[in-house]
Structures are given as structure tokens and as C-alpha cells.
């Protein structure tokens, strides 16, 4: 019954959905690095075109991509205000008595806003086109070389996937405990601070107890089915790179090189 869309994955049929999670993660990292290269307006336009193209390929609606930015709006306005008050270089555009707005303040804010915007769109595309489980599998595979230096990549991936698996279950559980306590007169909206504290306690304590209970039973079930964290395991899901992935990887590397070039040449 919860309208909580996990990782906000959007089941659709697009070339971006079909790509290997590993290459998607690497492309995301390449784009992130590109964004942080100070390559000026030309560079940002190049990245912008690239991102728009990927967004178009992923068949996600622009509305959806922008909706994920709503929470950032406040931060952007806050940034603008701070920048306007602090940065006093460049050409003064507006002057009312002691108050003035300099061009650099606007440019600086725009740069930061565009960077943030790009980053949010990129991560949104990644999570909306990749199932959480595939994402963990991708992370696990990418971290695999680190196992040589005793980095527990597969255990971490197992932890993440179990956490993802149990989020809906625990949300349901929370709802049930809330209902049970509301039937005993708990009112989370009204009441004194002390009452509210008790109300929250009456929710959290049972939730923890039940979560530990579940964890204990889950551990038993995993062990009974022969799970041994230190032993070798095979994997049911395999990741396969296709030509699509190579195109994506090459073009995003190219974009990064382009940005570095712009940065140095211009």
C-alpha cells in the first residue's frame, strides 16, 4: 500500500534500461568528472547536449527528471542570495544605493546551479533505468578487484541487496505498529513534547525488536541454505556488455577529453 517508489526505478523499455549497470555506473562517474572540470560555458553546453540526448534515449519524461529537482530549489535560491551578498567582482549590473548585484555573483550561482542540475539528472537517469538489485550487482563487480586487498565486496553487496529487499517489508511493519499504537491513543500530531517523545518511543522500540527478530530468522534461513560468507559462490545473474555499452563508454570518455581540451585550450 505504500507509494514509496524504491530507488524510483521506472520500468520501461529503452536502450538505457538495457545497458549493463557497470557501464552505466562508469559513464555516470565520467560525466561527474566532466562536470567538475572548469571548462566554461562551451563545456557545459556540450555536457548539456549529451545529457539531454541520454535522457531522450531513456524515454523518461522531462517532467519526471525535473520533479526530482524540487527539493533542491530552496538550496539554489539560498545559494543565489549568499552569492549576491558576498561576491562583489565583475561588472555591477544593478545598483540601488548600498545594494548592488555584480555579474560574477550571477555567473557563479549559475555555474553551481547547472552543476547541481546535471548531477541530479544523471543520478536520476541511473536509478530510474537500473533495478536496485542490478545496481548492487554492478557495484559488486566493479569492486571485485579490491577483494585482492581483502576488501569484502561481495559481503557489502549482499548487505545492500538484503537492505533493499526488506525496505518495503519494514515500511509495512511501521504502518502496522503505528496503527496498533494509535489504537492505544497515541497521537503523533498533537500533544506535549513529553507525550510526543513517548509516542515516538512506542513506535521505535517495537520496530527495532521486530527488525532484530527478522534479522535473526533471516540469518538462520541463509545459513540453513548453505550460505557461507567466506566461501566461493557462483552467481545466477550475470552481466553482459553489449556494443551499446561500448558506444556509451567511448562517447562519455570522449566528452571528458573534450572538456579537458576546452579547459586547457580556451
Amino acid at each position, binding site marked *: 500500500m505504500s507509494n514509496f517508489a524504491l530507488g524510483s526505478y521506472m520500468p520501461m523499455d529503452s536502450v538505457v534500461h538495457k545497458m549493463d549497470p557497470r557501464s552505466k555506473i562508469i559513464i555516470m562517474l565520467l560525466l561527474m568528472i566532466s562536470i567538475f572540470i572548469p571548462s566554461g560555458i562551451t563545456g557545459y553546453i556540450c555536457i548539456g547536449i549529451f545529457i539531454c540526448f541520454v535522457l531522450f534515449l531513456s524515454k523518461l519524461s522531462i517532467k519526471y527528471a525535473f520533479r526530482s529537482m524540487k527539493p533542491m530549489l530552496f538550496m539554489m535560491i539560498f545559494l543565489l542570495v549568499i552569492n549576491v551578498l558576498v561576491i562583489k567582482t565583475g561588472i555591477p549590473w544593478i545598483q540601488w544605493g548600498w545594494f548592488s548585484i555584480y555579474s560574477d555573483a550571477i555567473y557563479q550561482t549559475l555555474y553551481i546551479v547547472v552543476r547541481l542540475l546535471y548531477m541530479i539528472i544523471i543520478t536520476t537517469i541511473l536509478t530510474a533505468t537500473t*533495478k*536496485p*538489485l542490478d545496481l548492487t550487482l554492478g557495484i559488486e563487480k566493479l569492486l571485485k578487484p579490491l577483494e585482492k586487498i581483502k576488501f569484502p565486496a561481495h559481503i557489502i553487496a549482499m548487505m545492500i*541487496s*538484503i537492505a*533493499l*529487499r526488506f525496505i*518495503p*517489508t519494514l515500511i*509495512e511493519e511501521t504502518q502496522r505498529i503505528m496503527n496498533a499504537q494509535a489504537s492505544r491513543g497515541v497521537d503523533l500530531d498533537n500533544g506535549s513534547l513529553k507525550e510526543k517523545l513517548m509516542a515516538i518511543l512506542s513506535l521505535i522500540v517495537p520496530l527495532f525488536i521486530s527488525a532484530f*527478530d*527478522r534479522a535473526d*530468522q*533471516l540469518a*538462520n*534461513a*541463509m*545459513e*540453513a*541454505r*548453505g*550460505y*557461507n560468507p567466506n*566461501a*566461493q*559462490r*557462483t*552467481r*545466477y*545473474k*550475470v552481466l553482459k556488455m553489449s556494443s551499446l555499452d561500448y558506444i556509451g563508454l567511448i562517447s562519455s570518455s570522449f566528452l571528458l577529453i573534450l572538456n579537458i581540451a576546452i579547459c586547457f585550450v580556451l
Partner: protein
Amino acid sequence: MIERKGSDKYMNAIEVSHLTFSYDGQKDVIKDVSFKIPEGSYTTIVGQNGSGKSTIAKLIIGLLGAKSGNIFVMGKELNEKSVYDVRSHIGIVFQNPDNQFIGSTVADDIAFGLENHCVAQEKMQPIIEDVAKRVGMQDFLNSEPTKLSGGQKQRVAIAGILAMEPDIIIFDESTSMLDPQGKSSINKQIKMLHEQKKITILSITHDMEEVAQSEHVIVLNDGKIKLEGTPMEVFGHENELKDMKLDIPFALQFSKKLKKEHIVDECVCTLEEVVNQLCPLKSTI
């Protein structure tokens, strides 16, 4: 140590001898329990909550370590070294359907055991499809657990176990959290596994109707075996069962009344048998 003959013709799937266990080191919850479960048999363990039933199941698959006594599974003694080997012979279906569903989808969950036993990736898909079909879940391979009913989740758990081709399956109150539909679908599965697949079944249950359909019953009370035998033998001790706060199935209660009225000579414990007894006696007028 008990003596074991290597050439036993009738091998015991599970053999428990003088098993004692305590959670806190002081109060024993399993007290010197010994029993044998022949290969291919269908055994039920009954007893009140807190009688130690589920503890025995956890001891057999090595999730808990005994204080004293021995457990043999398929002829191998269970110890720290053999525990992974033993677990490849036994599957267990627990009570809570949610807390044993590990994968994000049905196929992933069935694959979990295969992954642990290093089955080659290319061999997994046919196995998964086959066992899913056997429990009637072939159309749900990509479903997430939140979209499944309790009964369906338990069927997936059974499929995950069948994929490992075990010799023994333990059902630890696997139907107690299910609705009637779920219950009867799991009970049908159990019966099928026993009759067609010849898998040794050990079922821990409260359901006296299920006990009546098993071959062998062990009654546990306060960590000790109080009664053991066929369902009819065990149900014969009605007063002792009552003292342990256990019921006898409705069919047997009714059968006893029929006997008292001299309508039938012998007591039976399932509804089908009651009807079969009465049919030939029906007057044609």
C-alpha cells in the same frame, strides 16, 4: 557414542541419540532425546509452544550446537566440520514466509542455494524453471516478494530447497502463519514430496489433521519425548495427550463415538477413513 553398523540395510535419514541442549547453560530445553527417522518416512513432531520442537529442528541442521549427545544425518555425524555437508542433505522451511525470502525476485530466491553450492551459472536457469513448475510458481519467476501471498512465498521456499535435491526436508511450523488456502496448498506439497519424490519429511506442526496423515508421530513435552508411534498409537493415549494440552483430530473423536455405539469395530483418524468405514454399512432401504 553409540555403535553404528556401516552396512545397515535400512538407513536412518536422521538419528538423534541422547541429545541435550540448553540456551543459557543452566536450564535444559532438550533433555536426553533419542529418536530415529527412517529414510523416506513422513514424521511429525507435536507439542505445545515451548516444548522444544523448533529447537530440535535447529539442532539437526546445525544452527545450534548440542550440549551433549549426537546427531547423524544420512549416516554422517554432525559436527563443526561436517555441518556444510549435512546442510546439503537437508532443507528447512521456517514459520515466517517473509523472513526466509532472501532474493529480490522469485528466481533470485530459488537461485540463492544454488549460488551457495557453487552450481555453474549456465546450469541454474533450467533448474530454477523446473522446481518453480513443481510448486506451481513458474508464472511468478520475476515477481517481487511483496507481490506474493504467504502461501506463495512458502512454495518458493520449497522450490529453493528442491533445487538442491535434498534427501530430507524439515517443515518447522511452515503453515502456521498461512490462511486456509495457503495451508492446504503447502500440505498438498508435503504429501506429494513424500509420496512421489520419496523425500524424508520431518514436519513440526500443531495441525492434528496433518499429524493424522503422517506415518510416525513424536510427541514432545517439556523437552522430553512423551509418546512415539503411528498416529493411531499416539492418539490412543487420549488422556496423556489431554494432560499435555494436545487435542485429537475431529475424525478420531467421531470415530470413537461410532465405536461406542457399536457401529464400527475399529477407530480411524481421518475423515476419508470414517466415510469408507460407513459406506458398506449403509442400509439400502
